């Protein structure tokens, strides 16, 4: 097999997880810091309804931007996000088979699941799991959600997050994310470098603090108003906006220490209210996916292309 491009990696993962019965979702159309914040993760992980989903999520982390000058630090990176609820018994094997799909022959490498506990204070979320290392390179996060939006996660979802740049850098043996071959003849840098430089300049130097603050306050008020009106998903959108504005303010160095704690608590509170409202609303609807899941034949999904190769290839 010739060396996979960035887009080959994405497409291989899409095929693999579709065959595992995942809905292939699309990136959320708002700024988020991680795939966990996509409603297809945060909200769907709540309540008793079974759920399997996979999607690419461009993730913005303003404080991590380096003007495109650091080979490993990005304002925006791409996550491949997989969520399965309840977590299947053989989930680690499935994950390893997905690596085989990327042309990684497990016997020729050192694959390790190293303890890593995860916590997202602005979401009131936490979980236990691992970072997955491939020959010393961290390529994925693997988390069993225990809490989401301040609610007990029941049943437990497992979340797998592939760092697409890291994995492709490993496969292509590039020492800079910008040297990754995204598509034949087109590098990651050619596609992304200008955005990285400009977005970093925006977050660190140019963002107007008063505008951001006003945006935060407006988003918070709107989220609260919409929650009162029982519109959970629009309310959650505004929580995401607040969260991103908070990250921008933070990168801009505009948040004092005391303020930081309060702003985070305010985000968390809204996330918690969204979580509660969402579960209540789904209950009113009779938890529809409980029925859907019962009707969905496992055979509907195409057989896993890589099953023959298996985890022990």
């Amino acid at each position, binding site marked *: 097999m010739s060396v996979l491009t960035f887009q080959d990696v994405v497409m291989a993962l899409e095929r693999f997880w579709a065959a595992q019965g995942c809905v292939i979702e699309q990136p959320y159309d708002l700024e988020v810091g991680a795939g966990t914040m996509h409603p297809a993760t945060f909200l769907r992980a709540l309540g008793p309804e079974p759920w399997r989903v996979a999607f690419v999520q461009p993730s913005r982390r303003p404080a991590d931007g380096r003007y495109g000058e*650091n*080979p*490993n630090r990005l304002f925006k990176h791409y996550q491949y996000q997989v969520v399965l609820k*309840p*977590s*299947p*018994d053989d989930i*680690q094997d499935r994950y*390893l088979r997905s690596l085989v799909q990327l042309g990684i022959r*497990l*016997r*020729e*490498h*050192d*694959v*390790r*699941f*190293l*303890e890593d*506990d995860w916590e997202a204070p602005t979401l009131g979320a936490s*979980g*236990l799991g*691992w970072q997955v290392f*491939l*020959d*010393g*390179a961290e390529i994925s996060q693997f988390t*069993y959600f*225990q809490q989401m939006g301040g609610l007990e996660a*029941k*049943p*437990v979802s*497992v979340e797998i997050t592939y760092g697409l740049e890291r994995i492709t850098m*490993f496969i292509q*043996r590039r*020492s800079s994310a910008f040297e990754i071959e995204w598509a034949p003849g087109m590098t990651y840098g050619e596609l992304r470098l200008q955005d990285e430089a400009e977005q970093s300049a925006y977050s660190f130097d140019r963002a107007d603090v008063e505008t951001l603050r006003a945006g935060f306050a407006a988003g918070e008020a709107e989220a609260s108003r919409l929650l009162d009106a029982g519109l959970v998903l629009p309310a959650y959108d505004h929580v995401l906006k607040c969260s991103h504005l908070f990250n921008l303010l933070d990168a801009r*160095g505009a948040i*004092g*220490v005391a303020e*930081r*704690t309060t702003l985070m608590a305010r985000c968390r509170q809204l996330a918690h209210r969204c979580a509660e409202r969402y579960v209540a609303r789904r209950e009113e609807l009779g938890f529809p996916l409980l029925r859907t899941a019962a009707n969905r034949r496992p055979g509907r999904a195409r057989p896993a292309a890589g099953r023959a190769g298996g*985890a*022990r290839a």
Partner: protein
Amino acid sequence: MPDLLLEIGTEELPPHDIAPALQQLAEGMRAALAALRIDAGVIRTYGAPRRLAVVCMGVASRQRPMVREVRGPAAQAAFDAEGRPTQAAIGFARAQGVPVERLQAREVEGKRYAVAVVEERPKHSAEVLPGALTGVVTRLSFSKMMRWGEGEARFARPIRWMVALLGRTVLRVEVAGVRAGRTTRGHRILGSGPRAVASAQAYLKVLKSSGVIVDQDERRRVIVQQTTALAKQVSGVPVLDPALLDELIMSTEHPQALRGAFDREFLTLPGPVLVTVMQHHQKYFAIEDAGRRLLPYFLAVRDGDARHLATVRQGHEWVLRARLADARFFVQEDRKHRLEDYLPKLDGLLFQAQLGTMAEKTRRLVALARHVSGLLLLDGRTTEALLRAATLCKADLVTKMVGEFPELQGVIGQIYAELDGEPPEVARAIGEHYRPARAGDAAPKTQVGALLGLVDKIDTLVGIVGVGLVPTGSQDPYGLRRAAQGIVEIIQMLRLRMPLRALAEAAAAGYGRRWGPEVLDLVVDFLRQRLRAMLIDQGVRYDLVDAAVAVSGDDLLAAADRAQALSAFAGRPEFARLYVAYDRASRILSAEAASQVDPEKFEVPAEHRLHEAAIRVSSRVRTATAGGDYLNALGELLALTEPVDRIFDAVLIMAPQPAVRANRLALLRLAVEAFRLVADFSKVVVASDQPSTPDGERRAKTTKKVQAAR
């Protein structure tokens, strides 16, 4: 007799959870077998990332029979005047499953009761063990527990399979919806599917043929031997950091070491940075030459076999190169400014949510350092160094390097301070002031470093206790126990006779808050408890520690010295004499004692002798303790023993005339006070064998209570 095997198959466990879990498994197994009255031989435990196992040799296939005596109703309620059983007796006998005519009337603790003698029928071990083993597994506890799937069970990571065998028989153990069988799983990559285990004897062999070295001691040998050999090939020795070694042993099922190299130019990075990148972030061992200089190699431990090592090495080298390039970039960026240029940024770094920023902490440290310098009458040069170090010690927290490698706090500060041309003692103090940074770490070695460590730790301790976050149980998120231990070590190392309460008060004043005296009490008591624990760890009897601490107030140095002296003196035969004299004199004391001794009221020479001895001994003891020579002080006290004994022989202390009685009591109090200059002997436990274990401590306390009641 058959052997017993229990294996809990899991997803990858946190390495630090495995050894404690194995200990719990062994103890749980031992207790379960004892409770079931099943004789068994040696218990061994095995742990690897995906399994916890316990093997018990020679397990009896049946329980030992047992006769149990159960106390029922009082005899007079159980039997009528003719000795016939009443309804009460019939009910009791039925409940115990014995015929009523077999009830016996017996005396228990001075009263007569109906007693049922119940014979427990021995059952097959295979019948009673499953329930007990299920209990052993479900009672295992971990630092963090999780749920998975749709279940309610909690464990460190999901349980995926179990093996439970007594001889060749599968025991029906079931935990978290997983039913035990005889099928284990081998290595994730090297193994070839599920494998049946015939019996406990076959366990190690079956796993080895499936690519798992289940014996953790063997994995340790493999890693040490391979890394040592690989380092030797490049004329070096591996830097086998013990914590990393333990972690690698518990995060591999089939360890295989490999050596990789990095560009020599990275050796220009500070040594601690290189080692941290390798050890903490990549889990590699560094290699040193004979002169303890780092060599441009590393040792990685793969979980797998020796095939395709070149590919694995290439991957690890690629990752390490990127990591080191990052570190070099951070150092270059950081070095564009002097360390002190970072100070303004401390305004944006939180020390603790309720206690403000690191900038505020820095200001407090400088003020407190000035206070300490005044207390200790430090010379100008030392004071200057201490204040400079206090000013700079937190600056590295906002550098890129510490942002990336938080465990290098202090170390980076020291390196940058040296490069800035700060005085060596200042740089050194910055590097040392967090120590001891972990269990087994040493306290700061230089005077300035120790004093800076002292003020930093007391500031943290007072602040955190002040906002009500005293550590409880195993929860100590601010590391207060370690801070307290550091303070105690520093006080002993520098031999600081320092009124600790006043120091804590000065620290509290730095926060500008109105904390009540109870906060200072808590702080001083917390420090005293740490000292107590440390002295007991060093082998000083707990009762002697208590005797020393009780009379030392907030002077921890005196408390430690007193305890050591008592410990040395307690081994001598005179010690018993000393204790007896104290005990006799103190036991009889009461509020009736006159406020002062009046020699005019003495009636016999023994009283005069004791009086003179008490005055002379007190004065000598004071001189000795002022010089910190408590061993000598104890020796001086011996001169009191004979006069005390004499007075009890010569007179009746509790004389009928109140004035004489009050005077004699006052005289004895004078003697007792002399003893109390050295230690509170009432805390001393005298028994034929001295307890030193916590268990013994409990036992001794009961003994003491009994004595007191007498």
